């Protein structure tokens, strides 16, 4: 830990101060039919561009939220960031090091220790046959941080306490806990190696509101205490507004808008962001129908030419149908939209 911090301090002033920098991240999956079918039916290879050129920075101690409809590539970005997938193009710079090179090299362990992930479903992400003690202790043993048994127990107890559980809980199995408690166990496991960057893939979407509030409060407290950096993925915009500093809106594998949270929620620029915000049910206007989102996300195997959002966009013109907009800095935010660039909206 101390070695890591000294390198940060030494190199940080020279280069960018962002802890996490994703540049042009892309992931393509080969979803072709089996080889024999392709030969017989003369089908070409089919490629799915799950993430197609996503770039962002996150400063230390800050939270970037990624939002977007299901299937837009949010979780793929998360998996790329923690090294579960290798990018097809682009890369990730973590603390001025190429993270994906480090994942493959001899420093793999060290890099993985610093980047951890909280998974979406606390019912599926904990091994039902393991005691909580083993679940939380595994990263510590795996990284060789603690080898002594008694010391390990003490550390697991500490971690449980830090997420509001009791050290006595370590001799229980996951099924003895409620959804919120299980998610806290996942958080404790993610925190075990004292990471600096946590990738949270919809950490509260399986939880009900009162438990969600508990988990979000714990996450915020931990961020304050330990200067943690979060990438927070969610489709619940109210939660995103609560936890994040910056928000990136994704559509079909690309970022369409990236802005400070207040700017994004108060004056959304991209037509897709506006559509998403209009679709949120308002709690205090009972019985009022919201503006439903028109259309559906197009098939990512066969995205429309030009701007991917053009079939659903109310401000579409010919340029949108043919030319793919780039992510440009306009008025303090980053946005990929011809209409905004041309000043039409």
């Amino acid at each position, binding site marked *: 830990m101390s070695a890591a911090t000294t390198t940060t301090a030494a190199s940080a002033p020279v280069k960018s101060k962002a802890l996490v920098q994703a540049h042009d991240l892309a992931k393509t999956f080969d979803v072709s039919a089996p080889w024999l079918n392709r030969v017989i039916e003369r089908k070409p290879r089919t490629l799915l561009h799950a993430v197609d050129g996503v770039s962002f920075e996150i400063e230390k101690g800050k939270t970037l939220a990624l939002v977007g409809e299901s299937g837009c590539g949010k979780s793929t970005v998360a998996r790329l960031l923690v090294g579960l997938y290798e990018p097809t193009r682009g890369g990730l710079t973590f603390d001025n090091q190429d993270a994906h090179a480090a994942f493959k090299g001899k420093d793999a362990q060290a890099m993985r220790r610093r980047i951890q992930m909280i998974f979406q479903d606390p019912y599926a992400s904990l091994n039902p046959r393991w005691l909580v003690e083993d679940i939380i202790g595994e990263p510590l043993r795996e990284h060789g941080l603690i080898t002594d048994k008694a010391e390990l127990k003490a550390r697991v107890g500490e971690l449980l306490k830090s997420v509001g559980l009791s050290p006595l809980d370590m001799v229980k199995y996951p099924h003895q806990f409620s959804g919120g408690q299980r998610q806290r166990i996942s958080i404790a496991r993610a925190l075990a190696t004292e990471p600096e960057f946590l990738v949270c893939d919809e950490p509260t979407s399986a939880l009900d509101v*009162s438990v969600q509030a508990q988990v979000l409060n714990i996450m*915020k407290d931990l961020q304050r205490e330990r200067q943690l950096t979060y990438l927070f993925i969610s489709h619940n915009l109210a939660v995103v507004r*609560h936890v994040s500093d910056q928000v990136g809106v994704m559509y079909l594998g690309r970022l369409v808008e990236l802005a400070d949270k207040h700017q994004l929620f108060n004056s959304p620029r991209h037509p897709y962001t506006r559509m998403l915000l209009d679709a949120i049910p308002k709690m205090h206007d009972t019985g009022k129908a919201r503006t439903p989102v028109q259309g559906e996300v197009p098939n990512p195997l066969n995205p429309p030419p030009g701007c991917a959002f053009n079939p659903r966009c109310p401000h579409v013109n010919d340029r949108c149908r043919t030319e793919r907009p780039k992510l440009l800095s306009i008025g303090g935010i980053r946005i990929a939209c011809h209409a905004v660039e041309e000043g039409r909206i």
Partner: protein
Amino acid sequence: MADEPTTALDVSIQAQIITLLKNICKSRGAAVMLITHDMGVIAETCDRVAVLYAGRVAGIGPVHDVINKPSHPYTSGLMASIPDMTMDRERLNQIDGAMPRLNAIPKGCAYNPRCPQTFDRCMTERPDLMPAGSTRAACWLHAGASTTASTASAATKAGVTA
């Protein structure tokens, strides 16, 4: 009967499903029982809402009144824990503790270990639904309050007796 029809969906698909559900109801005159923990969906779709706690109805009433002036402490706790789109808060209000195990529901009111407004009666006697303003709540805070008494006056009254 719709059991969490939109829980795993994002807002845009959720809006489509809700619209569909509403249209079906209108065209066929069907009644719907919607089970969800998304208060936004409830506010938008329902006429009446019942809040369940540990196997019993804690509060029931017209959706507008339950959301805006909750009469059961559990309902108010639930409402306060929802992140708001219009307000900035450093911390969300949380209801401390967890649901009791269903084979070990506490004596008296099931919510008493987590309730900020408990008094003696809550510990010993289990409340039934009683009128609380325009809604009904299973909470001793509303005991003795007449059907027309507002939530606020009922609360103060209970405070005095406690």
